[in-house]
């Protein structure tokens, strides 16, 4: 409200003690309130999840962590997350290994390589693709990707089968495997990671790049030495958004994967499952107790996301000096 010039020399970022003006107080209150509201919501969800989880897991007649099958509605209920955790991690890792470099490539292409006339419509198309609902990816995956993956699967089995990982136990079965799911997830999250990374690349201070250019750096050197380090935190954040979607993806996985309670190192076999797919598959017929069991598996997905995010936060924290703001 009132802008008394006496405060003009106040230090910029660190807040707290110097907040005296009404406008500032209101604004701080609003933003702090939002943060607290978010915490409250999360706490409520956490309590809800934990209560339901405890009631479910305590009646599990199998070991919740090591059991393969999911028969929560049988008497006695026997269910476990071993296959689901494995499948979720494997498919997401495949997705990230493919999507991350490709997305950074596309983002660089849009921000630094493509001619302007190409770049902005392209950016728009990528934005749009991030909006395609996952059920459409699922339909497309089941109808087009799976038949087209047949060749690649056979090829991998033939030439890389000795690695065990790319071995197919029954060659010729449809390519409805964790590997195909990983690729579909990669295609799904590429637009998401690209979007955020591109936005971050655009924010790289022009001066950094010009300085590098003035020193005679090639375009690649500019990218490597000034763009990527600056954007590191943003790229990690973008990846986390993408990974979050990959970990929790339901419909696309459910329509493409041939799920079964089998834990195998052969990622080309039609076997395995993911948390979200399992929830979708069992929810329709689940009793109240079955729902609780599914919620318990949701909590585990939560914890996995948490660990991954924690690791990402640590990476960002290590390289904070490149971030634009001191915050």
């Amino acid at each position: 409200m009132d802008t008394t010039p006496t405060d003009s020399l106040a230090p910029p970022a660190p807040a707290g003690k110097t907040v005296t003006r009404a406008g500032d107080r209101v604004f701080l209150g609003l933003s702090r309130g939002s943060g607290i509201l978010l915490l409250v919501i999360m706490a409520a969800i956490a309590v809800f999840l934990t209560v339901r989880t405890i009631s479910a897991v305590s009646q599990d007649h199998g070991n919740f962590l090591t059991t393969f099958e999911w028969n929560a509605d049988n008497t006695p209920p026997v269910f476990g997350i071993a296959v689901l955790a494995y499948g979720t991690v494997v498919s997401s890792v495949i997705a990230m290994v493919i999507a991350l470099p490709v997305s950074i490539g596309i983002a660089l292409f849009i921000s630094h390589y493509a001619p302007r006339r190409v770049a902005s419509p392209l950016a728009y198309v990528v934005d749009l693709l991030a909006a395609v609902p996952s059920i459409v990816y699922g339909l497309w995956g089941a109808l087009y990707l799976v038949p087209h993956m047949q060749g690649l699967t056979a090829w991998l089995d033939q030439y890389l089968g000795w690695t065990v990982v790319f071995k197919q136990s029954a060659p010729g079965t449809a390519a409805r495997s964790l590997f195909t799911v990983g690729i579909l997830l990669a295609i799904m999250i590429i637009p998401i990671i690209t979007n955020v990374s591109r936005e971050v690349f655009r924010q790289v201070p022009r001066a950094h790049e010009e300085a590098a250019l003035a020193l005679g750096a090639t375009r690649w050197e500019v990218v490597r030495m000034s763009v990527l380090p600056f954007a590191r935190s943003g790229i990690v954040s973008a990846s986390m958004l993408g990974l979050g979607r990959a970990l929790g993806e339901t419909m696309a996985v459910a329509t493409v994967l041939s799920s079964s309670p089998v834990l195998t190192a052969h990622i080309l076999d039609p076997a395995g499952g993911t948390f979200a797919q399992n929830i979708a598959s069992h929810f329709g017929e689940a009793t109240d107790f079955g729902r609780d069991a599914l919620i318990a598996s949701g909590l585990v997905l939560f914890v996995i996301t948490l660990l991954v995010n924690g690791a990402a936060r640590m990476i960002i924290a290590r390289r904070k000096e490149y971030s634009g703001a001191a915050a």
Partner: protein
Amino acid sequence: MKLQRKSGLRALAVGAAAVSGALVLTACGSDNNSGSSSPSTGASNAAAGSIKCGSKGNLLASGSTAQQNAVNVWVKNYMQACPGTQINYKGTGSGAGVTEFLQGSTAFAGSDSALKPDQIAQSKKVCGGTGQAIDLPMVGGPIAVGYNLPGVSNLVLDAPTLAKIFNGKIVKWNDPAIAKLNPSAKLPSTAIQAFHRSDESGTTDNFTKYLIGAAGSEWPYSGGKAWQAKGGQSAQGSSGVAAQVKQTAGSIGYFELSYATAGSIPTVAVDTGASQPVQASSDNASKMIADAKVVGTGDDLSLKLDYATKADGAYPITLVTYEIVCDKGNKSATLGATKGFLSYIAGSGQQGLSGQGYAPIPAEINAKVRSTIDALS
């Protein structure tokens, strides 16, 4: 740097204008599809004439996907005949339907399997303390075993062979057990790709009930809505299994007959020990249900099928789906409409079902269902 004042406000205003503009643009929708080019089946139109409407109301119901197409036609006819009543049936699966009914969120539920004792006990809470939930058998249907085997038609299998195929004991199409049942067919030596449901479903439940009842020790599992056998491949939903069978040579899978008809997938005739192998058809399923016994107590009319039947023309892989309501203590706001709708579907609604791949409930049981509906309160 050029700053613009009130940018946030103006942005908001533009956004609001855009949204309201979009709303205005599309605010010309209509629920009336009678003028559009949707040809309705003759059977359902004929049935629509004789509907006695219950009192008006808004009905929410959910459950079995197996009866969804039938309910869809019933709802269309009933709402045409009885303006002022809205019925909303959501096919989410029997389990979710029963759960929502037991939470008191819906007026009735559709289910592929009868209520369990603990569910009936739980239902007293939503049935006003005086009543409890009952099963009303409303429609049956054959579960077809579809296959994709180029060059082979009229495949015949029996229960033990089906069990062995789905249990991974028979892995080649030219296995002696299959060849014995199909002496004239030229069976290829390709691998059998057996598809089952990846989601839990009443279809799986009823299919494995049949295997347990008719195949004996060849099917060593306890049954249930989730698939228990090892091996094979899976797909989401009956539509997913049917799609896989259609596009994979050498495959076999199970789904409701309507999916086989829609996808022109050939179906297995079952050798039950009757004089001739039995085809999957509505009539044959009706014959199967005709021999069913009522095992529910009181007003509950849940049925038990004899899967090992050797009766001529009775197709044994058949499921019966129920509507679940309270016998007493239904919510007064929805009771009238519920009774009206259920009377219609148990009465004239039973005609024309076979045209959609469903089997009507035999007259004797149906009469009991109707008198029970009349007594609902």
